[in-house]
């Protein structure tokens, strides 16, 4: 198989948003596509509604499971503030795919700090390609509010032309329950079309 270019993907969001499952699917897709794959995440105290970040790396040979700052090809952000927090990890040519959703951290809901008001604008100021995705709307359209992570993976798939659509679907089918399969497949297509 012709070796494809390396891809470094950082998935960020809030604990409980289904980020780990998304990263599992993405890593499996990389493996199916014939890459060496590494993935790193953090459990325990770092969940419980806190900021969560997961690194997924594809390449011919991957050493570090962590991506270096400024080398991320794609930032897949499940939440706006988290996108802004991590946007400086993008490489100069990197793109951010951002779920257009605001979740107040307790530092904001308690009134001690303010949630930045114009995040979409601030993200664009970074100079990177920023794609906002209406994840919840699309997931609802697909038939399951919980399928936001699959919508976002669908959007990412549109940026990875080396990897066949069928490979994504194969992995998604192996990872979701039969009951939710239809909604998840639809969520994937809606995300892919949106990107």
């Amino acid at each position, binding site marked *: 198989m012709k070796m494809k270019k390396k891809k470094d993907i950082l998935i960020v969001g*809030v*604990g409980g948003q289904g980020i780990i499952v998304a990263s599992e699917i993405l*890593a*499996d897709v990389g*493996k199916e596509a014939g890459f*060496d*794959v*590494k*993935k*790193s*995440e*953090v*459990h*325990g*105290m*770092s*969940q*419980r*509604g*806190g*900021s969560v970040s997961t690194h997924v790396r594809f390449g011919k040979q*991957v*050493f*570090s*499971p*962590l*991506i*270096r*700052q*400024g080398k991320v090809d794609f930032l897949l952000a499940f939440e706006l*503030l*988290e996108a*802004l*927090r991590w*946007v*400086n*990890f*993008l490489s100069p040519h990197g793109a951010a795919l951002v779920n257009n959703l605001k979740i*107040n*951290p*307790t*530092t*904001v*809901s*308690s*009134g*001690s*700090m*303010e*949630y*930045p008001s114009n995040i979409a604008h*601030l993200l664009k*100021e*970074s*100079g*990177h390609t920023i794609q906002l995705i209406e994840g919840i709307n699309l997931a609802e359209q697909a038939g399951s509010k919980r399928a936001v992570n699959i919508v976002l993976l669908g959007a990412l798939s549109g940026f990875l032309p080396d990897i066949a659509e069928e490979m994504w679907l194969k992995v998604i089918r192996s990872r979701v329950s039969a009951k939710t399969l239809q909604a998840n497949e639809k969520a994937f297509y809606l995300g892919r079309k949106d990107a």
Partner: protein
Amino acid sequence: MKVLLSGNEAVARGGYEFGVSVAAGYPGTPSTEILENIVHFSEIYCQWSPNEKVALETGIGASLAGARTLVTMKHVGLNVAADPFMTLAYTGVNAGLVIVCADDPGMHSSQNEQDNRFYAKFAQVPLLEPSDSQEAKDLVGFGLEISEKYDTPVLLRLTTRISHSKSLTEVKDQRIVSSIGPFAKDPKKYVMIPAHSRKRHVLMKTRTKSLRALSESTDWNRCEMNDKKIGIICGSIAYQYAKEVLPEASYLKLGMSHPLPHKLITDFARHVEKLYVLEELTPFIEDQVKAMGISVEGRSMLPDTGELTPDIVAQAFLHESAPKGYHPGVELPPRPPVMCPGCPHRGLFYTLSRKKIRAMGDIGCYTLSVLPPLQAMDTCICMGASIGTAHGFNKASQGSDVPPVVGVIGDSTFLHSGLTGLLDVAYNQGNSTIIILDNRTTAMTGFQHHPGTGLTLQGKETRAVDLKALAESFGISRVHEVDPYDLKQLSQVIDREVKASEPSLIISRRPCVLLERKKRKTKPVQRQVAVDLCTGCKACLKLGCPAISFLAEDKAVIDPLMCNGCPVCEQVCKAGAIQSVAI
């Protein structure tokens, strides 16, 4: 077949492939998933022990009986198990015994970042350090083999980035059957009275010499000669970061890092122009290399604390400045972890916080109550420390006008190492009030069973400890069970018990809301804010519930996606604005 496994999954897989038949441990991030994966192999008996000391003692017994054994824990767990560990190093083993401990550099989910490599040197046992999942799996096999061959327990040290990173791992279906015989009576080896221990200690010195020879010859310690200008000695995750940043350098990669291969290090040092050691946390290897009289650099180039990253390695070796990147020019509110909406601990800590009662704390989800707005925890040292700390504080304050403090501890933590503390309070005639936050699980690490839940790791029904009867058997007669969702009752009981002149135990009992949510068939009775009744007093915000926030127009709002339907905020709202949502 190659599969993507985390380091923890790979250790479990290694347990299967290399013939482990007994495994024991106590949950602790980042080690928990080892046993959670071993449970899928029916060939292996596995259990959650009440604590790491008992887990290791169970492991010793299993090894003596002829079973290849794994014992798993997080780094601080080995402090608890240090007593058997240090003398197990004298007795040695029968069947292979590998102790897997996972360090947490950077303290992602821990109270300290101790470097457990020192335990291997301290106890004089071999130390193995994988740098990816394949190595984690294979080192289980190597560890069991040398444990049997050299009659020693083996320390397999993971770190968060090894335990929780996934990489491709070759898995096999066949399982090695261990050929170790049954226990043979041998008091000189197994009964550590001074006369026997003195002889065993001499044997340990010989064993270390043999192990050092192994460390020189094993393929697990290998030179990768490349550009000879830079030579780096490293292992574990530091190896991966170094290879990422400095692919052209020469490496002495150590998979077995105690005892160190002196000759290999000397030869490697001779063949490179400039020698470095790259290691996380402490100069464990570097100091030993320096003691050999070899000029080497490492720790001085790195930050003194915290975990390594490839960026730190690049800054140290390539003198790259930290990447500037884009900064949005606004302050980003941090997003600390929080107790979940509906968490039964919230009502308890809210009550303590309102009453300004000092709480000696412990390890678990509830430690998050230290953060604003609750700020209800005054100490957190280690598993079980709350009770002894409260007892000591109150003894020292007796007769002064310092109000008594309470000890707060989770159910799993209490059964781990709170029992002896409570016994101390009872025995030494303390007057402390101890509160057990009984949420019927080990929540922080992902809902593991413990001796209070009535189920084992392997899903078997079992007897569940009766906390009330237990405390009464210690001689504590004031034992009260309360529902932390009932703030009024909670307040009355706490007021009464902290004033009592004898010890008391309050069991604040309600299952973890996440567990309940999984079991639940119907939607919970959620709460919402009647906007016209909300006075904007912000009393509800003092609960620190992530589902409640404040709108710009000075009214509270409850996020229906997050609300798990607990009645606590309703009781806090004096205006009656928080109401149940009619279904």
